[in-house]
C-alpha cells in the first residue's frame, strides 16, 4: 500500500449550525484505489463526502474546521478555486440527477463548460465515457432523446459517465446503488472496479456487502466519528474495534 496519496484529511470537524456532524476525522485516500465508506444512517458519511468537493458550502449554516489536502493543497483555503476543485473531484449522487436535456448533452455539459466546442471531440467523449460506464450498448441509438426517459439504473450510469467526461482525478459516489436493482448495481460495481486504474474512487454505501465486493480499503463511520479504517479484507475479517464487528455482522445499524 505505497500508492500516492490523493486526499489527505486532517482533524476535519464539520458543523451544521450547532450540531457537530463530523468529529475530527483524519484519513488518507490513496490514488488508484477504491475507498469504501460504511456506517449507519446519519453517521456523517455523506457529509464527509460532500466536504471533499465543498458541496456543503451550499448549506447556509455549514462550517468546517481542520484540513482537507488535495495533492497537498488545502481546499478550504479562502482563495482555493472551488469550481476547479469540482472539476477535479466528480460526484455521483444517491438519486440519479440527469439534467433535463438529452443523453448526449448531459455528458457534454461538463466538457462544454470547460470550453470544448468541437463536435467530433464531444462525440468521442460521449462514446468513451458511456462505454466506461457500461451504458453505451443500451443507448447508442438514442443519444439525442431525453435523459429523463432512461430507467433508474441507466440514469445512474449516465451520471457516472457524465462525471467521467470531466476527466476528474477523484470520483465520489454517494450511495450510488441505493435505488437500483441487483443487475444495475452489478453493472455499476463492474464499472467502478474497471475505473480505479485511472481514478481514485470514494464510495459511500449503506450496503456493507457492496463495500466488501468492490472496495480496496474500507472506513467505518459512526455518529460522526471515524471508528476504523484499513484494508477491506482486514475490516471484514478481523475488525479491531468491537463496534465495527457488530455493524458488519448486522448486530446493529
Amino acid at each position, binding site marked *: 500500500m505505497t500508492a500516492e496519496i490523493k486526499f489527505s484529511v486532517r482533524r476535519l470537524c464539520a458543523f451544521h449550525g450547532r450540531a457537530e456532524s463530523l468529529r475530527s476525522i483524519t484519513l488518507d485516500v490513496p490514488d488508484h484505489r477504491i475507498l469504501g465508506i460504511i456506517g449507519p444512517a446519519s453517521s456523517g458519511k455523506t457529509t464527509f463526502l460532500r466536504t471533499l468537493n465543498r458541496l456543503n458550502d451550499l448549506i*447556509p449554516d455549514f462550517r468546517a474546521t481542520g484540513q482537507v489536502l488535495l495533492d497537498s493543497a488545502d481546499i478550504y483555503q479562502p482563495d482555493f478555486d472551488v469550481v476547479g476543485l469540482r472539476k477535479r473531484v466528480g460526484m455521483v449522487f444517491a438519486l440519479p440527477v440527469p439534467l*433535463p436535456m438529452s443523453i448526449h448533452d448531459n455528458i457534454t455539459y461538463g466538457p462544454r463548460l470547460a470550453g470544448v466546442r468541437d463536435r467530433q471531440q464531444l462525440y468521442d467523449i460521449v462514446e468513451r465515457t458511456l462505454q466506461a460506464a457500461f451504458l453505451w450498448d443500451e443507448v447508442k441509438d438514442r443519444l439525442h432523446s431525453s435523459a429523463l426517459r432512461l430507467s433508474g439504473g441507466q440514469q445512474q450510469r449516465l451520471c457516472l459517465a457524465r462525471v467521467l467526461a470531466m476527466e476528474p482525478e477523484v470520483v465520489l459516489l454517494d450511495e450510488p446503488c441505493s435505488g437500483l436493482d441487483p443487475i444495475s448495481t452489478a453493472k455499476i460495481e463492474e464499472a467502478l472496479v474497471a475505473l480505479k486504474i485511472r481514478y481514485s474512487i470514494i464510495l459511500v454505501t449503506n450496503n456493507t456487502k457492496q463495500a466488501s465486493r468492490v472496495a480496496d480499503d474500507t472506513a467505518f463511520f459512526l455518529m460522526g466519528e471515524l471508528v476504523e479504517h484499513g484494508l477491506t479484507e482486514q475490516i471484514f475479517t478481523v475488525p479491531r474495534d468491537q463496534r465495527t464487528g457488530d455493524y458488519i455482522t448486522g448486530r446493529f445499524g
Partner: protein
Amino acid sequence: MKARAEKLAQRILLVIALSAISSLILIALFIFKEGTPIMVKMGLRRFLFSSEWEPQAGLFGIYPMIVASLWVTLGAMLIGAPLGIAGAIFLNEFVPKTVLRIVKPAIELLAGIPSVVYGFIGVMVLAPLIRNHLGGPGLSILAAAVILGVMILPTVISISTDAIGAVPNSYREGALALGATRWQAVHMVILKAARSGIIASIILAMGRAIGETMAVIMVAGNTVKLPHSVLNSARTLTATIAFEMASATGRHREALFAIGVVLFVIIMLLNSFATVILRGRTTRA
C-alpha cells in the same frame, strides 16, 4: 333530515359556482352580440386594417389603436420581462432564502397599487423626463411602455420565482458538482428546467399589459393616429373604449363593442396559450 340538508348545501354551492361561470359566458355573449354586427357589415378587414377612425363620419378603422396597443405591450414586455426574470433569478439563486421571503411579498404588493397611481407618477415624473431629454410630447408610447413595464413586474417575478424555486435542488447540486459556476448552473440548467413557468409568467403579464386601461389613458397621450415612433402619443384599444363609451350611440357604440371583441379574443388566446404551457410542465415532470 341530514341527507336533505346535505343536498341543499350542495345545490346552493352549485348555484354559486355556476353564477361565476355564467357571468363570464353572459359577458362574452353580450360583447359578441353587440360587437360582431358592425364587423360583418363593414367587413372584418376594413374594421381591423383601415386607419380612419371618425365616428361622426361613420368611419371605424381601428388599425392605429391596434398598432398602439401592440407597441405599448411590446415595449412593456421588453422592459418588464428581462427585469422581472433577472430579479427572479437573483432572488432565488444569489441571495439567502430569508431575503426572498421578505422581498417577494413586497414585490407582490406592487400589484396592489391602483393603476391610477402608476398613471399619476407617469404624468408627473416620467412624461416631463421624456419631453426634456428625448423630445416629443412626453405623453407617449414610451412613457406608457415604461409604466406598464413596471406594472407587470409583480406578475413576472412572482410566477417566475415560483417556477425557479420548484426546480429540484438536486439539479443545482448536480450542475455545481460538475464544476459549473453559479451563473452557468443558472443559465444552462435552472432556466431550462423552469422555462415553461417563466414563459407562462410572460404571457400572463402580456395579457395584463394589453388589458390595462387607466394608466395608459393617463400617460399615452391619446391621439388616434398611426404612431411612427415611440415618442409619438397614441391611443390604445382599451383607452378608446373608456374614452368614448359614455357618449357613443348607434354604430359608434357597436364599433366600441367590436373593439371589446378584439381585446377579448387576444386575451383569451394569450391565456389559453399560458394554460397549455403550464399544463405541459406538469405532465412532463
